[in-house]
């Protein structure tokens, strides 16, 4: 057996360790990895074991659990939650936003009150920035209304990237060339920097959606984009997350979910309606 194979074997994750991790990580973050994600989880666990110099998974997991600063737990969260996204993903929902939803929200606003949009999870920023650009390009009300956009994620690394606002051409693969030319500046062979006027206008915050202590202050939003997150949660965490989203929304506020997600399977608190080509969920007024 080669040295590297021996090292790999030593860093192997046993079935019991995987089961413990599933339960612990699920309780702490709401994200439950099914057995079919074993390879994904094992690879990231062994990477973190190597990075922290742990020779056994059991010792590493104990370290994660009991480390006073919990910084390694955050690094593990970051490793487990990197999600690929891109600008103007599921554009039909952005179209629905400017073709009905924004005007409906604006009708209920007093003069001087801003419209608040929450992008959760925002990953590396493509979603909140897409919302901002789409509104500026396609919503006439932008000339008269104030819009505040907050992007949040549990992963601190992606939030740093979001704040930096540098994107690859892969992230811009669905972005029209005229929009790239207008809002981005090429900074390397494959890198584009989003204009500072946009990056500095979005607020990014770290939050765990299933932790009531962290989410309690998230209130007064009119629109929430929570796409492709709930599918990773177990049923209890899904309910907790939806409770948080319900509390975060103003009466009459809207939620956009991912195209494969359905609120009606989780909660009956929202009414479903159609805006342009998208289904949206609305908190009763």
């Amino acid at each position, binding site marked *: 057996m080669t040295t590297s194979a021996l090292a790999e074997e030593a860093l192997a994750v046993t079935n019991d360790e995987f089961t413990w991790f599933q339960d612990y990580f699920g309780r702490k973050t709401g994200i439950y990895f099914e057995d079919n994600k074993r390879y994904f989880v094992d690879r990231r666990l062994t990477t973190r074991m190597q990075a922290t110099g742990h020779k056994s998974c059991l010792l590493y997991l104990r370290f994660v659990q009991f480390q006073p600063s919990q910084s390694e737990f955050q690094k593990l969260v970051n490793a487990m939650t990197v999600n690929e996204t891109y600008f103007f993903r599921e554009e039909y929902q952005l179209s629905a936003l400017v073709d009905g939803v924004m005007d409906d929200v604006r009708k209920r606003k007093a003069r001087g009150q801003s419209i608040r949009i929450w992008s959760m999870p925002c990953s590396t920023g493509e979603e909140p920035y897409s919302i901002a650009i789409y509104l500026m390009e396609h919503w006439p009300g932008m000339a008269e209304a104030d819009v505040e956009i907050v992007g949040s994620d549990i992963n601190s690394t992606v939030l740093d990237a979001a704040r930096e606002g540098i994107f690859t051409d892969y992230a811009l693969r669905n972005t029209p060339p005229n929009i790239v030319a207008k809002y981005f500046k090429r900074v390397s062979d494959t890198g584009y920097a989003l204009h500072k006027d946009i990056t500095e206008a979005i607020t990014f*915050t770290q939050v765990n959606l299933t932790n009531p202590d962290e989410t309690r202050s998230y*209130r007064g939003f009119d629109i929430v984009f929570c796409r492709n997150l709930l599918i990773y949660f177990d049923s209890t965490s899904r309910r907790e997350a939806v409770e948080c989203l319900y509390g975060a929304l103003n009466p009459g506020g809207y939620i956009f979910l991912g195209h494969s997600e359905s609120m009606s399977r989780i909660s009956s*608190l929202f009414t479903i309606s159609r805006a342009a080509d998208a289904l949206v969920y609305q908190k009763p007024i």
Partner: protein
Amino acid sequence: MGLVKRTSKSGEKRELRFRDRSKEDLLAQLGDAQAVERRWAVRDLAEYADTMPMLCDCLETEKDEAVRAAILTTLLKQRSPEIARRLSGILSSEDAALRSAVMDVLADMPEQLDSLVEPLLRQEDPDLRIMVVTVVARLALPTVSDWLLNVAQQDAHPNVVAAALEGLGECGTVEMIANVRAVATRFPGNPYLAFSADAAAGRIGQRP
């Protein structure tokens, strides 16, 4: 006009709590006239496991759907056999929306409901037994198909048996097919049950 940004570092409204959040005050707020206050009290009580019986009491009288949902989510998070027992008692409520919401939560408490299933399946009221069968069919427990087959073979009420057959169509095993088909013979002259048994056996047989 356009994009605006809050000046606070977090970007969020600073949390302002105008009401006392001690356990005693939160319990008192469960009786607040404003549903939004009751809902926040429920959410904050989630950290006090000993208040779950009071939340169960509230659930029986609470009319606001959002407060109910918050109570049920909190009870689900704190799940215990006692909570499952209290919730199963609510299945006899006259309130259909509440019953339905409770069934959804019970289906997510398999381990806590485990020891209660057999007594619940022996209740006198067939409507209650149908609801229990519906919940049982959704439980993630290895004993589910045995429970359902037992109901299909033993229960006297055709509608309860039909509910069990429907569940068996989802979770029955290949070894059960002959027994599932034979359930129809318990109710000769009942074409619906003959159809249900046949359909359940067919669905079991089609599964890979």
